[in-house]
């Protein structure tokens, strides 16, 4: 289990390569990468991601631990950035490895649902239309009920 919370960019390709390398028991690797998307009908100058140092690492570790308990995972990685980002920047990634594909897919999907609504990050969009905090979506909260 690897958890990293950082301001710096990460190299998605290199992380994927390293995560998948040297495995012989693993049959399936799933990765997810979240990218800063411009809001509809506005020009995004930047997105600022605030987080709660200390609690963030703890919450991510708890979420990863839940995934490990629920599925047969060989490994699990979460990287999440904070600070100012521009459109197209890679915000975060998760990766899961398992014997069979169903576990890797379900665990990655689960990690993303919990990261969305249970990890202490907040996003502020600074656009040509003004500044606003991204609101949590009801659908994100509802997604947790799937698990």
């Amino acid at each position, binding site marked *: 289990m690897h958890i990293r919370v950082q301001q710096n960019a990460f190299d998605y390709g290199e992380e994927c390569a390293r995560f998948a390398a040297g495995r012989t028991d693993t049959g399936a690797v799933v990765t997810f990468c979240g990218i800063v998307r411009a809001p509809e009908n506005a020009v995004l100058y930047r997105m600022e991601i605030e987080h*709660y140092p200390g609690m963030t690492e703890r919450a991510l570790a708890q979420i990863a631990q839940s995934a490990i308990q629920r599925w047969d995972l060989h490994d699990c990685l979460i990287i999440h950035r904070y600070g100012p980002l521009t459109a197209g920047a890679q915000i975060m990634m998760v990766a899961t490895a398992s014997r069979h594909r169903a576990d890797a897919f379900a665990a990655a999907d689960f990690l993303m649902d919990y990261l969305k609504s249970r990890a*202490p990050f907040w996003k502020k969009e600074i656009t040509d239309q003004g500044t606003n905090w991204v*609101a949590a979506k009801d659908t994100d909260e509802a997604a947790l009920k799937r698990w």
Partner: protein
Amino acid sequence: MNLEILYFAWLRERIGHPKESVETDAETVGALIRELRAREDRYALAFSDLDAVRVAVDQELCDLDTPLEGAREVAFFPPMTGG
């Protein structure tokens, strides 16, 4: 009891600072919020809609009924938007 109180995102912006030390006898999170609200308008405004406020006590998510006994750090923030 002395508590370190943290605010994040628009709660931090409305209250005007990211953290403060508070001396309180509040027994629960709900009681603490009532005390904070009574302080000044900006607190009353920040805590006007509790459906939009989440709370962590010592870095664990909790709710308004959570007791504060033994707590050191209480954080208030809007619903999280990670990922």
